[in-house]
């Protein structure tokens, strides 16, 4: 496999968990709620998926469990932010700690347990195409599912009536309420949906990518997802691009090393984050004006009815 093919394949394998969390966070942010607890949702999703896949011997059951667990944790965020008017950013971090604590408590016994994981499905025909076959058509089922999620989410957010309501909840809350819609209900749905997808991302990490449960194994991917959503201006295709970029940066270092190139120890750790920061800085200023109203006053969540 050439270096380029390998890094691009790795970009998709490693970027998919971030993509799920990022697309999920796009829903929440479009509705005007930032959820820094995304990392926590990924963690509980990873553990729930691994535990259930281990107990039932069925990775699909694990994926469903990851989805539910991520959603439930996001519900905690939604409740405190939307009902109790808690500070979004602080509460997001609290939710992350909650996820960390819960998963280290309940996850200890699963560290050494084997679990049935997803294996790559090479798509007949397409999978044997040179280069492209490896990059796109030799992945686990959750990765294929994410290929469908991106255009579906784009359509939902930008072309559907529901997406319009969602964006209105983030940008024009007064208008929305004056038309008789419950802003809070829409925001609830968006945040929980976001957590659900983050949980599925965690599941992909645990039972398709790393094939293991380990304490704090998400290692900041949830925060990367939140950052990606900011520079992608909540647009699913750009979120996917950003996630794959991060995945590529992660895949580059082992790919170079396995070919005998030495890399600076600090650069090794920093490349993925530096990539994200550089892109953020490059695109951030231009996008500032596009942020939804609800996000411009993150310390005081928009009034809800």
């Amino acid at each position, binding site marked *: *496999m050439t270096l380029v093919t*390998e890094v691009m394949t*790795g970009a998709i*394998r*490693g970027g998919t968990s971030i993509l799920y969390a990022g697309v999920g966070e796009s829903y929440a942010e479009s509705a005007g709620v930032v959820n820094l607890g995304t*990392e926590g949702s990924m963690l509980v999703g990873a553990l729930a998926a691994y535990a259930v896949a281990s107990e039932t011997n069925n990775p699909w059951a694990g994926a469903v469990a990851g989805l539910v667990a991520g959603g439930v944790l996001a519900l905690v965020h939604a409740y405190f932010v939307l009902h109790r008017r808690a500070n979004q950013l602080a509460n997001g*971090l609290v939710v*992350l*700690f909650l996820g*960390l*604590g819960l998963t*280290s*408590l309940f996850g*200890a*016994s699963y*560290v*050494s347990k*084997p679990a049935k*994981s997803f*294996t790559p499905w090479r798509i007949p025909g397409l999978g044997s195409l040179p280069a492209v076959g490896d990059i796109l058509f030799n992945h686990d089922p959750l990765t294929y599912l994410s290929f469908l999620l991106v255009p579906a989410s784009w359509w939902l957010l930008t072309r559907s009536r529901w997406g319009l309501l969602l964006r209105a909840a983030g940008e024009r809350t007064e208008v929305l309420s004056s038309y008789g819609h419950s802003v809070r209900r829409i925001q609830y749905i968006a945040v929980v949906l976001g957590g659900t997808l983050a949980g599925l991302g965690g599941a992909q*990490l645990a039972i398709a*990518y*790393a*094939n*293991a449960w*380990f*304490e*704090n*194994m998400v*290692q*900041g*991917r949830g*925060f990367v997802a939140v950052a990606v959503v900011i520079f992608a201006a909540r647009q699913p295709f750009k979120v996917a691009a950003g996630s794959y970029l991060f995945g590529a940066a*992660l*895949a580059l270092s*082992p*790919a170079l*090393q*396995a*070919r*005998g*190139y*030495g*890399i*600076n*120890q*600090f650069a*090794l*750790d920093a490349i993925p984050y530096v990539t994200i920061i550089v892109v953020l800085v490059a695109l951030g200023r231009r996008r500032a004006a596009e942020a939804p109203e609800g996000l411009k006053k993150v310390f005081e969540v928009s009034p809800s009815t």
Partner: protein
Amino acid sequence: MPAVALALSLAVVSGACGSNTTDTATTATTVAGSTTADAAPGKDSKAVGFIFVGPKDDFGYNQAAFQGSEAVKKAFPDVEVLTAENVPETDDAARVMEGMIDKGAKIIFATSYGHLDPAMKVAAAHPDVAVVQQGNLIKGTVPANAGTYFGTVYEPVYLAGIVAGKQTKSNKLGYVYAFPIPQTISNINAFELGAQSVNPAAQTYVVNTSHWCDPGKQAAAAKSLLDQGVDVITQHQDCTGTITKAAEAAGAMVVGYHADASSLAPKGWIAGSEWSWADLYTDIVKTALAGDFTGSQYNANFREGLKDGQNPFVESKLGPSVGAEVKSLLDTAKERISTIGSPFAGPVVTQDGKTLVADGTVPDYATIESIMTVFVKGVVGELPKN
């Protein structure tokens, strides 16, 4: 993301404190006369404390150390065994150890490489507590109440390299490691030297993850090595499951490290090296309880190898595909190392052809620790620069 780092360390510390096993029955009868000013470190300790850097069931380093603490619990039913998992390699480790001392522990095992500094700090503050640290050597004068211990890990790793060298079809072996520290580099070098001793064409490809346990990075590292055509994978990581499973799933062979993980790779497992701490831990506790710690072999830099027959690092069981020919090669090599004293007996040559160990020289442990900053010939890859 400083907030995250802070949050993580808080979570980790609270997890560590919460996992102290406390309520073990302490029926230790107070020995008459023990109240006299007897400062022998660890003497008549009511409890023994163990701190681990990771979870106790990681199929790796921490699991092996935890099993050692279980052996201590069994051997000394009257002594309380305190354990703390996920103790970071920072000052927080000192706080956890202080907490154990408050609970009556006068013998402390700090079991991670990065626990050295906090362990030495605790030792300096409590001359009556025997503090032993796993992995490092103490430079300079050794305090009377402190010591380090370890095995000559590179010996069983060398032997595993022989198995890998004989079993490989592609002559490409893969090594996933965490940090470029002397222990790790000497393992990689020993593995390659073992492999090339039976197969001059065998090369070891190395990938660094700069993390003792990040399953995501491990998966990427294993994938990269497999993509390079490596057909045997080994590692120096704390949690070993991800890499073992990735190799097994790809049909590659696995050489284990730290613990027996052959159940994770029933087809691919060929060899491995693992810790067997029970005897050593028990003997250290026995020595300290008796008041004989100071001046004992544990009150300094304790290292035992094949030559002395006390190495706590042992060979794992061989896989089903390993035949009689390889086994006899192993016996010969074991015999040779036991006689000579080290798998690094010269000549050993670096990647760029310089002499690392001169012909006829047998380096001791301290020398090996100090010279292992480069890879030997046959290792493919560069060390990360700092």
